[in-house]
C-alpha cells in the first residue's frame, strides 16, 4: 500500500502520480490522507488500481474515472464520478449535487444520500444510492441504471431517454415524460445484480421501476405553446 498525504504533497502531484499508473505491477493500492475537502481528487485515472480517500472531498472527486476503484471514506462535494467511463466509485457518506453526471459506464455507489440532479444526463453508468436522492435526478438520462433504496425528490427522470430508474421508497413527483413501468423478470434480475455488486441488502421486489413514456422523442406540434 502506498500512502500520499495531501498535507505534504500537492494535489497536482497526487493526480499526476495516480494518472501515471499503468497497472500490471504490484503497486495497486493507494491511500490518500488529509483530503480536507480538496477539489478534483483522483481524477482521470486509467488503470485497475484501488484508491482510498480518508476523509471528505470537494468538487469532482474521481471524475472521468476508467478502470480504477475509488473509495471515499467520507462525503463528497458536487459532481462525484462525473463522466465516469468504467471502474467503480464508492462513497461512504453523502454526495452533493449532480453525482455521476454524464457517466458512460462503471458503478457509483453512494451509501448515504445524494442531493439534487443525481445521474443527470447519465449515459450508461450504474448508480446505486442507499439513502435518498434530491430533485431533478436522472434529468435527460440516456442510458444506464439508477437505483435508489430511499426516496426520490421532485421531477424524477424529467425528459428521460432510455435509462432505467428503480426506487424503493416514495417518489415526490415524476418529471415530464417519466412514468412508472412494469417490473418484469429481467428487471428483477438486473436489479438483484446491481444490489449485489453495490453490497446492498435489499430485495428487488420492494422496488418500483420508472422509465420514459417516449412521448418527447419526436417533435409534436401540440406541445408548442
Amino acid at each position, binding site marked *: 500500500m502506498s500512502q500520499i498525504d495531501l498535507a505534504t504533497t500537492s494535489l497536482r502531484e497526487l493526480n499526476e502520480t495516480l494518472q501515471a499508473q499503468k497497472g500490471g505491477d504490484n503497486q495497486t493500492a493507494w491511500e490518500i490522507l488529509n483530503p480536507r475537502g480538496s477539489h478534483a481528487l483522483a481524477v482521470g485515472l486509467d488503470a485497475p488500481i484501488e484508491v482510498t480517500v480518508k476523509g471528505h472531498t*470537494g468538487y469532482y472527486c474521481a471524475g472521468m474515472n476508467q478502470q480504477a476503484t475509488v473509495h471515499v471514506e467520507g462525503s463528497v*462535494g458536487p459532481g462525484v464520478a462525473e463522466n465516469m467511463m468504467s471502474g467503480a466509485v464508492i462513497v461512504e*457518506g*453523502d454526495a*452533493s*449535487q449532480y453525482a455521476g453526471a454524464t457517466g458512460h459506464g462503471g458503478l457509483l455507489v453512494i451509501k448515504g444520500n445524494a442531493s*439534487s440532479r443525481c445521474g443527470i444526463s447519465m449515459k450508461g453508468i450504474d448508480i446505486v444510492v442507499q439513502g435518498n436522492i*434530491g*430533485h431533478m435526478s436522472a434529468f435527460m438520462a440516456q442510458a444506464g441504471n439508477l437505483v435508489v433504496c430511499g426516496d426520490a425528490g421532485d421531477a424524477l427522470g424529467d425528459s428521460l431517454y432510455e435509462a432505467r430508474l428503480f426506487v424503493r421508497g416514495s417518489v415526490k413527483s415524476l418529471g415530464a415524460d417519466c412514468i412508472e413501468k412494469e417490473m418484469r423478470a429481467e428487471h428483477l434480475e438486473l436489479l438483484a445484480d446491481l444490489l449485489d455488486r453495490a453490497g446492498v441488502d435489499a430485495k428487488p421486489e420492494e422496488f418500483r421501476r420508472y422509465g420514459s413514456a417516449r412521448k418527447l422523442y419526436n417533435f409534436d406540434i401540440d406541445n408548442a405553446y
Partner: protein
Amino acid sequence: MCGIVGLFLKDKALEPQLGAMLTEMLITMTDRGPDSAGIAIYGAAGNRAKLTVQSDNPDQDFATLAKELEEALGAPVTLRANDTHAVLELPADQVEAARTAIADRPGRIRVMSDGDVIEIYKEVGLPRNVASRFNLPSMSGTHGIGHTRMATESAVTTEGAHPFSTGPDQCLVHNGSLSNHNSLRRKLRREGVRIESENDTEVGAAYLTWKMQNGATLGEALEASLTDLDGFFTFVVGTKEGFGVVRDPIACKPAVMAETDQYVAFGSEYRALVNLPGIDAARVWEPEPATVYFWSH
C-alpha cells in the same frame, strides 16, 4: 460564484476566537470570491447602540465626526476608528438622528449597520488583505457571517460588497443572483424602505427587513422570500440572536453545514470548515433546498 462562511458559537469559551476562526474560513473561500470581502460580527451588547460607518477618507472624516454628532444630537458619542471603518456608540434613541446628521454633512460617510451588537466591515480586495486591514482575527463575538465576492450584478465597490444590513442587527450575505431585484427595489422604495445601492442582494436584505417590519418572524420572512424572490440564492442571514440559512428551490449554489456541541458552521464548501475544532467528529450535511434553518442563542 461567491463564498459564504458563518459561525454560530454554542460554547462561550470559543467567543474570543470567533474572529480568528471566521478569518481562516473567509480566506479559504478566496477562490470563490477574490474581488471583495466582508464580515458581520455580533459582539457583546452594551447599553448603547452601535453604528458602523465607512469612509474613503477616514483620516479627514473621522477626525471630527464624534464631536459633530455630539453637537447635533446633544448626547455623548464615541468613535472607534478601524482603517476605513469606525464604530460609533451613541444612545439607542439617537440612531435615526445620527443617520440624518451623517447624511447631511459634507463628505461621503456610508452607514454599514446599526444595532445593539452588530459591526460590519467590508472592502474591495483579496479576503486576506481585507481581514488584515481590519484586524478581523482579533475580534470576539457570539456569531458572525463572512462573504467573499465575485461580482455579477453590480460594480466591484465597497457598497457592492456583502454583508448588507437593512435593519437593526440584521444582515444578509448571498451567493447567487436575483433577477427581479429592479422591480422589487422600486416596490420596496415606494413602501419607504431604505435601499442604498444598485445591488441585487441589498434588495433581498431589504425585502426581509420589510417583511419583519410588517410583523413576520425571520422564519416567515425567509419562507416568503422563496415565493417573492426570483433567481438563484443561498442566503445566510444574521440577527442579534443567531443566524439562518435558506436556499432557493433549484439549489445550484452550494452549501455545507457542520454542527458540534461547540458550534454550528456554514461554508460554501467543506474546505472552509476543515480547521474548525472537532470537525472530524462533526455532523456534516447539505441544507435542503427551499428549507429554512435557524439557530439562536
